[in-house]
C-alpha cells in the first residue's frame, strides 16, 4: 500500500499548481466565459505546452499517462484553481473515445489534441435522456455515401470552441437499448449541424445541438457499428473520476478560503472562527473532504477493473462527491455571511462550479439508486 505520488506525477502536480496559481485570475475566468469560445486560448496553450493534455493519454497513442491517477491529479489542480478548459471534453471524453476506438486515420487527431491544436466535444446526452447513457434517440440512417444523422443533443459542454464532435446516434435497437448505439466523428462545419451556444453556471460555455439530415461518409464511423455502448460507459467512468477530482480541488480551495475568512472576520470583538458553533462545522467539513479524497482515490484506482466492480465505484464516488459538494457549498456560503453571496468574491465562482458537478454524469441520488442496483447484481 502506498498513497504517495510517483516522482513524475509529483513534478507534474507541482508544476501545474504553480502555473495555474500564476495564470488563473477571476478576470481571466470571466473573460473566458464571456468570449465566444467559452475558454481562454492562452490557458489552453499553456496547458498543452506543459504536457497536461498529454498526461491524459496513454503512451500507445502518443501521451505519457492516461491512468486514473493521472486524471485525478490534473483535474484536482484545475478544480483548486477554479479553472475550466475543454480538458474533460477533449482530453477524456472525445479524445478518450478516439484513442480507444479510432482507426489509424482517426487516431492521428490525438497528436493534434495533445499539442493543443484541436478541440473535440462529446455530443451524447439528449433533452430527455437526463443521466442515462443508453438513452439515445438521435438516429443514423444509411445514406447515399454513408450515414444521415437526425436528432438533438443537450447541454453539449465546450461545444462552441470545438472543431469536431464525437456524436452518438442509433444505428439500431430501441430508445433505451445498450445495443445499437454508434459513434461518429463529425466536423463542426458540416451542413445540417447547428448550435445554440450559451454560458453555463460555474464558467465556460455549452450548446444545444441540432442535427438535421447531416450526411456523413462511411469513414466517419468511430469503432464498430452499433457497439459503442461499452466504450461510452468506460469514457463516462473516466470522466466521472475527472469531475470528482475537480470537485475535490474545488472543495480544498473553498475550505482554504473559508478557513482564512473565519480567522480574519471579526464580529463581537473576535474572529468568528473563535465561535465554537462555526469551529465544529469547519471540522465536519474537513472530515467530509477527506472522505471525498478517499472516494476519488477509490475510483481512480478501479477504472481498469471489470465492469461491475468499476461501475460500483463510479456510483459510490459520484454519490459521495455529490453529498459532500452540497455540504461544502452551503456551509461555506453560510459561514461567510453576506460576503459569501456576492458574485465578486472568489467563493461565488468556486461554489457555483462545485454545485454544477452534481448536474453532470449523474447526481447523488441517481448514483445512490444505481449503486444499490449494481450491488444487488
Amino acid at each position, binding site marked *: 500500500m502506498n498513497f504517495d505520488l510517483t516522482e513524475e506525477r509529483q513534478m507534474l502536480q507541482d508544476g501545474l499548481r504553480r502555473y495555474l496559481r500564476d495564470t488563473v485570475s477571476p478576470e481571466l475566468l470571466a473573460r473566458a466565459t464571456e468570449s465566444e469560445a467559452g475558454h481562454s486560448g492562452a490557458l489552453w496553450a499553456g496547458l498543452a505546452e506543459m504536457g497536461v493534455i498529454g498526461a491524459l493519454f496513454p503512451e500507445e497513442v502518443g501521451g505519457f499517462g492516461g491512468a486514473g491517477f493521472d486524471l485525478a491529479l490534473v483535474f484536482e489542480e484545475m478544480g483548486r484553481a477554479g479553472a475550466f478548459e475543454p480538458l474533460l471534453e477533449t482530453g477524456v471524453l472525445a479524445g478518450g473515445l478516439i484513442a480507444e476506438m479510432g482507426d489509424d486515420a482517426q487516431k492521428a487527431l490525438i497528436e493534434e489534441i495533445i499539442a493543443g491544436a484541436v478541440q473535440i466535444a462529446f455530443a451524447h446526452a439528449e433533452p430527455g435522456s*437526463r443521466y442515462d447513457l443508453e438513452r439515445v434517440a438521435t438516429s443514423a440512417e444509411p445514406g447515399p455515401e454513408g450515414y444521415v444523422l437526425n436528432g438533438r443533443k443537450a447541454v453539449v459542454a465546450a461545444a462552441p470552441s470545438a472543431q469536431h464532435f464525437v456524436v452518438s446516434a442509433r444505428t439500431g435497437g430501441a430508445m433505451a437499448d445498450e445495443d445499437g448505439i454508434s459513434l461518429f466523428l463529425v466536423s463542426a462545419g458540416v451542413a445540417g449541424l447547428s448550435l445554440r451556444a450559451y454560458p453555463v*453556471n460555474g464558467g465556460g460555455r455549452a450548446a444545444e445541438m441540432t442535427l438535421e439530415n447531416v450526411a456523413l461518409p462511411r469513414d466517419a464511423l468511430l469503432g464498430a457499428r452499433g457497439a459503442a455502448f461499452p466504450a461510452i460507459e468506460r469514457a463516462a467512468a473516466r470522466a466521472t473520476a475527472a469531475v470528482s477530482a475537480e470537485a475535490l480541488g474545488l472543495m480544498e480551495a473553498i475550505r482554504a478560503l473559508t478557513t482564512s475568512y473565519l480567522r480574519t472576520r471579526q464580529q463581537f470583538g473576535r474572529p468568528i472562527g473563535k465561535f465554537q458553533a462555526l469551529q465544529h462545522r469547519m471540522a465536519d467539513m474537513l472530515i467530509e473532504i477527506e472522505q471525498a479524497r478517499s472516494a476519488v482515490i477509490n475510483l481512480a484506482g478501479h477504472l481498469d477493473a471489470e465492469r461491475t466492480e468499476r461501475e460500483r465505484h463510479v456510483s459510490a464516488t459520484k454519490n459521495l462527491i455529490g453529498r459532500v459538494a452540497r455540504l461544502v457549498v452551503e456551509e461555506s456560503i453560510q459561514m461567510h455571511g453576506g460576503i459569501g453571496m456576492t458574485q465578486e468574491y472568489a467563493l461565488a465562482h468556486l461554489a457555483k462550479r462545485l454545485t454544477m458537478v452534481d448536474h453532470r454524469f449523474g447526481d447523488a441520488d441517481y448514483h445512490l439508486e444505481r449503486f444499490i442496483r449494481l450491488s444487488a447484481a
Partner: protein
Amino acid sequence: MDLNYTDEQKAFRAEVRSFLEENLPRRLSDKVAGGKRLTKADHEEWHAILNARGWLAANWPAEYGGTGWDAVRRHIFEEETTRAHAPRIVPFGINMLGPVLQKFGSQEQKAHYLPRILNGDDWWCQGYSEPGAGSDLASVKTSAVRDGDAYIVNGQKTWTTLGQHANMIFCLVRTSKEGKPQEGISFLLIDMESPGVEVRPIVLLDGEAEVNEVWFSDVRVPAENLVGEESKGWTYAKYLLTHERTNIAGVGFATAGLATLKRIARLEQSGGRPLIENPFFAARIAQVEIDLMAMATTNLRVIAKTASGQAPGAESSMLKVKGTVIRQQINALTRQAVGPYAMPFVSEALEEGGNAGPVGPDYAMPATQSYFNNRKLSIYGGSNEVQRQIISKAILEL
C-alpha cells in the same frame, strides 16, 4: 384543541381568493411563477392594487390605514397570496418602518410618512448592516453629528436590498461613542436624493443586482428626521427586527415552492418515467412535505399565541431556523429535479418579452437561481446561527 378554521375565517379565505382571481394581473403572477425578473413598476402596480382594496398593510392597525387583521387573518392572506403567485409585498416600508413609526414616531412623522408608504410615494430601504457590523449590529459606525438643526452623516451601509429603487432609507447611526455600543445608536430617516448619498450595486451569485452599498459623505439630514429619542435607536431597531421576523416561517412561500417542485418533477423524465415516480426522488419530496406540514402547525401555534397582534418573542427564532431550512431544501430539490438543464445561464431569458428564449424547459434556470439566491434566507434577518444563540439563551436559558 381544534385544528379547524372558524366559519368566519373560512369566509375570509374565500373572499381573499376571489379578490385575487379578479385583481391579481395574470402578467404579474406569470412572472412570479415563472421566476422572471420583477421591475420596480411591477411591485408598485401590485402595491397599488392592494392599497385600493385597503389590504396593503396587513400588519397595521386600522387607524393608520392598515387592515387591523389578527394574526390568523394575516396568515390566511399570506397563504392565499403566495399560492396565487402574487408578488411579495416589499417589506421595508410596510412591515419594518411602519410599525416603528406607529410606536415611536412623532405625530408629524406618522402623518407624513405612513400615507406615503401606502400610496407608494416613498420606496424605503433598510440601512442597518455595515461592512463591519453584520451579526454584531451594535457595532455600527456610520456617524451622525448634530450641527444646528441637522445631523451630518458619514459612513457606509451595505447589503441594502433594492436600494436602487429607493428614495428613502432608515438607518442606524452612531450619535455617541460613550457607554455600551448599543447606547449610542440613533434611528434616522434619510432622503436618498440628498447630496452626498451614493448607491453602488452589488451583484449576487445568481447574477442579479439585488443589494447595494450606500455611502454617505457629509449628508445633511434635518434633525426632525430622528425617530424617537437620540441614542435610543437600539430599542427601536430591535422592535423592528421582531416585526421583520413575523411571518419569518415563510410557510406560504414553502407551500408554493413545493407545488412548483412537484409540477417540475411530473414534467421531468428519469429512466423514461416521470421523475416524481422515482422512489428516491419521491421520498425526498415526501420528507420535506412532512416537515412542512408540521412546520405549518408550529407556525399556527405561535400565531395563536400572538393573536392579539403582538410580535412573537424568541419563538420566532425557531420559526426562522426551521422555516428557512425547509425552503432551502425545497430549492435544492428543485435544482436537482431539472437535471443537466441546471447548467445553462441565459440572463436575458428572465426579462419579460426578451428575445432570448430559455435553454431547455423554462423552469430550469429559475430553479438554479432560486437555489443560489435563497442561501440568503439563513443569513439575513439575523443569521440562523444567531437565532440558535437566541433560542439557547432565551428559551433554554443555557
